[in-house]
């Protein structure tokens, strides 16, 4: 479980009571029912979009969110850079491993590193994460060994880690389901009087699912400390976001009585700041928040997908110019005099990670046939026992036949 991610994590359940919490009231605190209006002080091109770093790596001021990253050091920024590079390296390694037949499938996060690292690094150890199947960067931040993420894509399990060791739930494939689990978990956090927060990831496509909207209702009614983090990567397999909504997704929250905000999902700093704001709201007893990270799925939906059938190369190129890693690198170079050595070191480190992952995956054994019957029930089930026994006898019959 030990990994190379920047901060070693010791997940735990916070029992700190809310009374003791700092619970800073945020700028958005008053706007319980409405959406945060885009403030005129924002410098980004799109008035709706919270941006702190331009694609060119220039830091722009934001009256509302600057304070959430006010004290950030160059070291921390370099940490975010490292997180993103290593995550991308891991991701591309997994893509290669799929091509080599080591994995059955891979869902790449290429292009979404800033959204995931920014939000992931905003979390506290005792917060709890409910991912989709693409949150490799968030998993990284939680200290989940990347190798563990590959089990389900290799086909050796359906989820290879203990959710409670890193407060990082299993990947969920049924679109949207996890948003309700997150909401329930958050209701439990509130019941416990803890000041932890919960974050639920989901995609632009998922926003259409009934479950996601029910999660909005439940979280609003119970004022659950949950952040809904929607990575709008513009596509749900082949369908553009216009097939899911005719208005920007962050606006959905208003109708359920909590704020929604759209953040530049390729700007790791903005994602960090906005997620921190949303998490503080949760901790402070202000209930749910929707964050729409406006980003782009630069690769295929999965290794099974062929995006050339439904989208143009120009679109991808336009987004490449907004690359989250490049952006932070430019910023580090110009604003923080980060030299080549640092970048080279991260590069070397990422190569090592790639190697380690490759080797670990190749060494991953196939599960034993009896695994089929394991953990179907916690307390056992007569039929499973019977079938296991039949299976054993059947297996043994071959051994007998082969004269073993």
């Amino acid at each position: 479980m030990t990994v190379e991610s920047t901060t070693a994590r010791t997940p735990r359940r916070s029992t700190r009571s809310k009374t003791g919490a700092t619970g800073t009231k945020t700028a958005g605190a008053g706007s319980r029912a409405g959406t945060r209006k885009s403030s005129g002080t924002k410098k980004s091109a799109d008035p709706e979009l919270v941006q702190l770093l331009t694609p060119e790596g220039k830091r722009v001021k934001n009256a509302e969110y600057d304070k959430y990253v006010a004290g950030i050091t160059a070291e921390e920024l370099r940490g975010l850079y490292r997180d993103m590079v290593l995550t991308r390296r891991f991701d591309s390694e997994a893509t290669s491993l799929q091509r080599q037949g080591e994995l059955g499938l891979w869902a790449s996060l290429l292009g979404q590193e800033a959204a995931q690292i920014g939000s992931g690094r905003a979390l506290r150890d005792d917060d709890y994460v409910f991912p989709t199947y693409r949150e490799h960067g968030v998993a990284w931040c939680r200290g989940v060994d990347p190798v563990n993420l590959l089990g389900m894509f290799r086909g050796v399990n359906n989820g290879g880690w203990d959710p409670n060791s890193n407060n990082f739930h299993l990947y969920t494939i049924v679109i949207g389901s996890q948003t309700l689990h997150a909401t329930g978990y958050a209701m439990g956090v509130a019941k416990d009087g803890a000041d932890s927060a919960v974050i639920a990831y989901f995609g632009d496509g998922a926003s259409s699912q009934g479950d996601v909207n029910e999660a909005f209702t439940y979280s609003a009614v119970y004022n659950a400390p949950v952040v809904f983090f929607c990575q709008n990567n513009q596509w749900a397999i082949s369908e553009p976001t216009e097939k899911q909504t005719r208005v920007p997704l962050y606006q959905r929250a208003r109708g359920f009585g909590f704020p929604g905000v759209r953040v530049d999902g390729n700007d790791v700093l903005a994602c960090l700041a906005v997620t921190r704001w949303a998490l503080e709201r949760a901790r402070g007893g202000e209930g749910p928040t929707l964050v729409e990270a406006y980003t782009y799925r630069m690769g295929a939906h999965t290794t099974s997908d062929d995006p050339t059938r439904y989208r143009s190369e120009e679109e991808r190129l336009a987004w490449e110019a907004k690359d989250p890693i490049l952006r932070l690198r430019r910023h580090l170079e110009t604003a923080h005099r980060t030299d080549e050595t640092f970048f080279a070191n991260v590069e070397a480190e990422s190569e090592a990670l790639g190697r380690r992952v490759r080797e670990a995956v190749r060494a991953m054994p196939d599960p034993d046939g009896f695994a089929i019957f394991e953990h179907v029930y916690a307390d056992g089930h007569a039929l499973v026992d019977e079938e296991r026994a039949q299976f054993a006898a059947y297996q043994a019959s071959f051994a007998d036949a082969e004269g073993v």
Partner: protein
Amino acid sequence: MAAEKMALAKAINESLRRALESDPKVLIMGEDVGKLGGVFRVTDGLYKDFGEERVIDTPLAESGIIGTAIGLALRGYRPVAEIQFDGFVFPAYDQIVTQLAKMHARALGKVKLPVVVRIPYGGGIGAVEHHSESPEALFAHVAGLKIVSPSNASDAYWMLQQAIQSDDPVIFFEPKRRYWDKGEVNTEAIPGPLHKARVVREGTDLTLVAYGPMVKLCQEVADAAAEEGKSLEVVDLRSVSPLDFDTIQASVEKTRRLVVVHEAPVFFGTGAEIAARITERCFYHLEAPVLRVGGYHAPYPPARLEETYLPDLDRVLDAVDRSLAY
């Protein structure tokens, strides 16, 4: 109290109360379970005594009920979720089948989901559409779930205690037309295993197998048959998943004839699984094929037709006669 006569619904109420008292992690949740005490008053008084943090009126959204119950269970709670009527469980079906049932296996045993889903089910109360169905087979086919249904007050009390204590998700089907039937409940008795069937009447000529609302009917059938000199054994299954084939088998090896009775449609119903497996286990013992009495392959009919639709004394006796005629 130790032993007391009470209605089945009241027994469930008492059982929930005991669970709430003895384990602070137990929660009750569902539509109208709070102030109203449930449309059948099964949760009556619990909201008043345990408050809204323990007895939770939920929004009108069943997927949300089960989905948030899963989340609460992941946080360490033991939710007892109510689905108001059988026909309204389907919006939650996805969460039950793809999440609740599979999470423990998906996590390789690392997480447990001790969630109980209470569903008043079955017909015979003259209700409108969607209020009288018996969907248990649609859950039994799904691995990861346990399905039980008590037939009397004492079982209702104890089986619910056991379901709540179980670390597995349990669908607890309550025979709503028996809610008002009274029975002795000994709250100090030590119950037998949750998934074990019980021979409620011994007999030698034929075995009747039933669960939930049909057990009482089968006992009446046995009475009626006894008047004609036929000795029927009646088995109360209590559990639909797992099914206690051992108990059925033992009975059938003795009586050599089996009729399975349930309200749910026969086609792909519980009777099919029992017939298939018992025929395999007792191939040389059976004097007649396993016969099934249950619902027709048709939507549950409007109330004025339910007497015709539901298995009754005559229909079961007819099957008994047909079996004995082999």
